[in-house]
């Protein structure tokens, strides 16, 4: 099934756009905006608003129609492969399949100080009505908080016998999270811990796809709830025979 954006008629391809051009507001700037959007492959390009954004910049609002289509039937999204269990389900699963407490370590690494997301997953009080991992009777959850260097996280993981590492990265400006996340995987591998650890990262601009690409077992984005993460950890442990 080929699909295309929809404004008020099926397949009309209607798209709203806005951007700034590094030239002063002028009829030429407007025309440049139009041509630019044409070059992106749009039709019926209409620059509906132009404003002087100051300092030799002009701001444009554009409506246009794209010819681009995607075949929706071919879309497949790599998804975290775990049966979705509840709080009770996860704990029962651990008792049944693992038979000991699962040790989980979380941290906002590098210079990241955004703990709210990780806390939402880990803290007792939980998030959006779901208890956090600290509340799971069959888990031992340690939240190391913010700005934790990768080295510290690993040494603490060894010390506490962690089964899973939960890494949060919220600041993604200029892709600052990529080298930091990569470094952790490299360090884990260098320590020979990769096989024994479930490696998870999360944050609003992260996706499962990116996580896999960087060598993690799973990645969680906006809207994640604690049981999503817990379900994955325990099933991944069993799948990989981490006992």
């Amino acid at each position: 099934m080929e699909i295309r954006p929809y404004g008020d008629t099926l397949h009309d391809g209607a798209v709203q756009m806005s951007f700034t051009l590094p030239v002063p507001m002028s009829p030429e700037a407007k025309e440049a905006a139009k041509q630019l959007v044409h070059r992106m492959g749009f039709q019926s390009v209409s620059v509906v608003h132009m404003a002087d954004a100051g300092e030799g910049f002009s701001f444009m609002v554009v409506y246009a129609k794209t010819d681009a289509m995607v075949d929706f039937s071919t879309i497949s999204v790599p998804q975290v492969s775990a049966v979705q269990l509840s709080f009770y389900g996860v704990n029962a699963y651990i008792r049944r399949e693992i038979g000991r407490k699962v040790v989980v370590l979380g941290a906002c690494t590098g210079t990241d100080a955004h703990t709210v997301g990780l806390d939402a997953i880990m803290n007792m009080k939980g998030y959006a009505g779901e208890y956090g991992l600290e509340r799971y009777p069959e888990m031992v959850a340690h939240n190391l908080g913010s700005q934790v260097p990768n080295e510290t996280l690993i040494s603490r993981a060894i010390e506490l016998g962690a089964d899973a590492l939960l890494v949060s990265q919220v600041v993604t400006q200029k892709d600052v999270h990529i080298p930091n996340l990569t470094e952790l995987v490299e360090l884990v591998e260098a320590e020979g811990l990769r096989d024994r650890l479930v490696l998870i990262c999360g944050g609003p601009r992260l996706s499962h796809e990116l996580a896999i690409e960087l060598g993690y077992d799973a990645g969680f984005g906006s809207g994640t709830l604690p049981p999503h993460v817990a379900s994955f950890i325990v099933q991944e442990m069993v799948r990989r025979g981490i006992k």
Partner: protein
Amino acid sequence: MGKINLDEKKIGHARSAATRIALSLQEFIAEHTTVAVERTVARLFGIDGVDGEGVPLPNLVVEDIVRGGGISRGAAYYIANACVALGATPLQVAVQVAEGRLALTTLPREQQGVEAFIAQLAEIALQKITERRRQREDYLAEHGEGRQPYLYVIVATGNIYEDVTQAKAAVRAGADIIAVIRTTGQSLLDYVPYGATTEGFGGTYATQQNFRIMRAALDEVGQEHKKYVRLVNYASGLCMPEIAAIGALERLDMMLNDALYGILFRDINMQRTLVDQHFSRLINGYAGIIINTGEDNYLTTADAYESAHTVLASQFINEQLAHLANIPDEQIGLGHAFEMDPDIEDGLLLEIAQAAMARQIFPRAPLKYMPPTKHMTGNIFKGQVMNAMFNLTSVLTKQGIHLLGMMTEAIHTPFLQDRYLALESARYVMNTARNLGDEIAFVAGGKIESRANEVLGQALLLLQEVEKTGLMEAIEAGIFADVKRGRFGGKGLAGVVKKAPDYMNPFPALLASRHLQTK
């Protein structure tokens, strides 16, 4: 305004509880100094620059004194002592230390004239600051103070030159205040980076050179637009007083200055940063710089409805701590924020209650009002509307320093167009609702009034509790922002030093005793 019928007695009680809390903390502060405070003294004495490895001279000097076991006497003494001994300027002394040719603590002590020399150096430093302050006052006399709420936007490209472009564009679009956000992590550096910088993440390094570059740019565009554009940077962090000093020397106009922010959100050791805070505030106060406190941040980790009173309690404490640093009300930009869950029925009433209450309790403070951030999502169109409600609340309740919300808050640090659109929207809302605050009254005994009194009552109880336990203990118990921090945990504890009986620092007394006149 003064329109909400607030329980004035409770306000009085709360304020005196906060005074006692501040005073008891002040005892601790008075007994200590820190490496950052001493580096600040070095800077005020004119020591600046870096060595071959890029280490700032103030750090090398203070490390040298620490190494020599002399830090509890204070850097002022050793620097002046060396100057007198060598007939050199502080900078010349510092260069010698940096080159490893001099260890300050090894020079002969108790020479004649050291104290007088210290007084002289201090006088020169204060004169420079005074001159900057006068410049600001001249500009303001020329262009006027401008109308509140002041529209405050951030630039955060990481590159000071790109920041300049964006800042100037923002001024042309109506901004009154430009804040250059620091690169992520700078507040944990125990030194101040040097020179013009072009590589930051989510912000730009705070350096003296960067301050200078931005100051010049804003003066220029301000002249063109016949207004004085205020410049902001951040003092909080491990270099709190140093950056305050740099800010004073480069004519910044406002500084984010709050030890509690560093403690709670940066895990900086509380002893360290509370001591640093006091000295930094003395400098800010003297320089005529408005401090901005960070209570708004509490509502990013704690719930805005449940924890509203912690914001108010903290404002009371911050006010008193600022007074102890000789800062007049007009320079105390107490922070608060519009962070109520947008799905709450009558949430706007709660926000109005909170904002009007703060306005009334701190009538002369230029309240710093923060936009919705936590509940902003990738839905820029809804975000634009949430920001509009915030803008309206601000003008309605007559806030002082109005941080513009960006519709892209949940996505990236602002693009040029985000800032442009935010300014346009704020100008529209504040103009169309300009005098609304004077034209409506809150119904007596209604939801708005009751909420304000409820928050005030809770804040009073909290302050009374904090008064009993002490502020540091309260922080250990996690009363602010749902975050607990230990007295001996966090970064920078090693830099805290108990003052020796012969400790010497000319500045606190001078800064606190002389009160500059604003024209």
